[in-house]
């Protein structure tokens, strides 16, 4: 009962963001960014926290979503739904294709290969100047009004926020549904003891592949929304630094909890926004934040809270 109340409260807070966020000194686009990154982080946590495979290359899927959506808007069609769909699918298909190369690997090795493959897409984006705009990023597209039948909805900041919230809800519901299914329980069993799952006849590699693909797909959706939010796709959206940021957001919020990544994103995005306006050396502070979280706060915020509650 308490869980449902908490989730309902969360949704009320999210629905009301355009009203209360400006009151506390934020702006709606910041709320949209939190949702976008939150979706990406929850998508990553499916693989990291639930299936137990540490991907350090999720910026690749995020960036593919960005570039996919941006390229559609720029070269193909000015349809927002098509852009979102193509961006999402581009990431999903790429993750599905690369999955077999990484699914057998474990632990650090899995992380290393995903980092390296992530950089492949970064270099493609930087070097394929004519199409992607190279180092400067992909510009020259803008999000278009939504057409529902004869109804035209302009995508100003507030409307965009609700569109992103809708996609966020769809993505999160999809993941929650998967995690409650037998598939989700199998992922957790692989995380807990891969060899035992194998002995029980579970084809663990295929399950990791599935987790990798779904995770990439959801993160790609987040990326496509990111392109709409900024009307811009940057090579930085593909860089491994962003992969690291996603991973630290997940850990900060709590890897073992469903909503943990969202909490981590809120804190991280706000901290980054604040620090980069405050000092030129914000990189040092972000780095120190990484170190502090790892050394002092490994279970994450929701992890610690959940643990306390269970003990009481």
């Amino acid at each position, binding site marked *: 009962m308490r869980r449902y109340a908490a989730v309902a409260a969360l949704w009320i807070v999210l629905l009301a963001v355009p009203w209360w966020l400006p009151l506390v000194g934020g702006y709606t686009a910041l709320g949209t960014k939190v949702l976008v990154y939150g979706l990406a982080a929850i998508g990553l946590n499916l693989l990291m926290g639930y299936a137990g495979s540490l991907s350090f290359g999720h910026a690749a899927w995020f960036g593919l979503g960005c570039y996919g959506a941006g390229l559609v808007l720029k070269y193909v069609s000015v349809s927002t739904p098509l852009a979102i769909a193509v961006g999402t699918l581009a990431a999903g298909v790429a993750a599905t294709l690369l999955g077999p*190369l990484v699914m057998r*690997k474990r632990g650090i090795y899995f992380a290393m290969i995903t980092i*390296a493959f992530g950089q492949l897409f970064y270099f493609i984006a930087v*070097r394929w100047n004519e199409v992607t705009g190279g180092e400067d990023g992909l510009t020259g597209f803008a999000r278009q009004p939504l057409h529902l039948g004869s109804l035209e909805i302009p995508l100003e900041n507030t409307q965009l926020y609700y569109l992103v919230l809708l996609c966020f809800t769809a993505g999160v519901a999809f993941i929650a549904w998967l995690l409650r299914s037998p598939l989700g329980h199998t992922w957790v069993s692989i995380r807990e003891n891969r060899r035992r799952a194998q002995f029980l006849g579970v084809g663990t590699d295929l399950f990791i592949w599935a987790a990798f693909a779904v995770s990439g797909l959801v993160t790609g959706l987040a990326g496509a929304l990111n392109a709409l939010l900024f009307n811009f796709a940057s090579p930085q959206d593909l860089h491994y630094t962003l992969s690291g940021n996603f991973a*630290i957001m997940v850990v900060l919020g709590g890897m073992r909890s469903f909503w943990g990544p969202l909490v981590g994103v809120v804190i991280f995005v706000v901290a980054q926004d604040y620090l980069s306006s405050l000092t030129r050396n914000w990189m040092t502070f972000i*780095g*120190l934040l*990484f170190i502090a979280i790892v050394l002092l706060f490994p279970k994450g915020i929701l992890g610690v809270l959940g643990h306390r509650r269970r003990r009481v």
Partner: protein
Amino acid sequence: MQLLLFNATNGLIQGVFYALMALGLALILSLNSVVNFAHGGFLLIGAYLAFTLMPYVGFWGGLILGPICAAILGLVAERVLVRPLYKRPDPIYSLLMTFGLALVMEDVVRTVWGAEGLPFTVPDWLNSPISQALFFITRYRLLVIAITIVAALGLYALLRFTRIGMRIRAGTRDLETVSTMGVDIYRLRALNFGLGCLFAGLAGVLAAGILGLTPTMGASLLMPSFVAIIVGGVGSLPGAVLGGLLIGLASGVTSTYYPAASEAVIFLIMAVVLIVRPRGLLGEEGLFE
């Protein structure tokens, strides 16, 4: 033909730096079980400190002191930051910690020495090419290769013929057993981490003479070194060297024919290796699988 030779040599020199980085990374990866994202940071420290010290201790002094400073800093970082993480089986923590450390180190270097590139002067007689036709083979480049060979052979001798090397090799197999035999594995891992950082510093000093000093040089050398380890085979030091040279050469040769793909090609090689031979060229079967 000359262009191809020119690019191949450039690629090979790059490959030497990848190989040096990958050697240190592989050492740390196999015994400390840490993917050292801060390796590029130690490279920076080695290179910049050598640059700062050179007016006082001369070129050769800097060449020696830079890597040593990187190693000492590595020992400190290991003691303070990495050691608390050995108890945690999940590799994400060491990965994220070194990732943060890399950010801090790069930013500190940028703040202290500036974001602009600095000229790293190599003595004139070293910078002269060995012949007119082979203008791209300077004495300095030969020196880089010679030092790398000496360093790699030195590492081999250390691991093969000394007691501490034997313990490191044994520790990569089964750390627990080594510990029960009365070896202080904390000190062993600390030494190993420092040794890895020594190689990072060496790569930094040598690379600075060719690529110049910039705060991003560490990060840009790091990623190919990861690829080098994967291509060569995780757990194999000769594999790391081979992988580094191979992708450097491939990148150089590709830049002759299709410059835009000179980075992408190394990932292509990695993908092919992972499909054809998932353990890497010289890797052992079953490691991390």
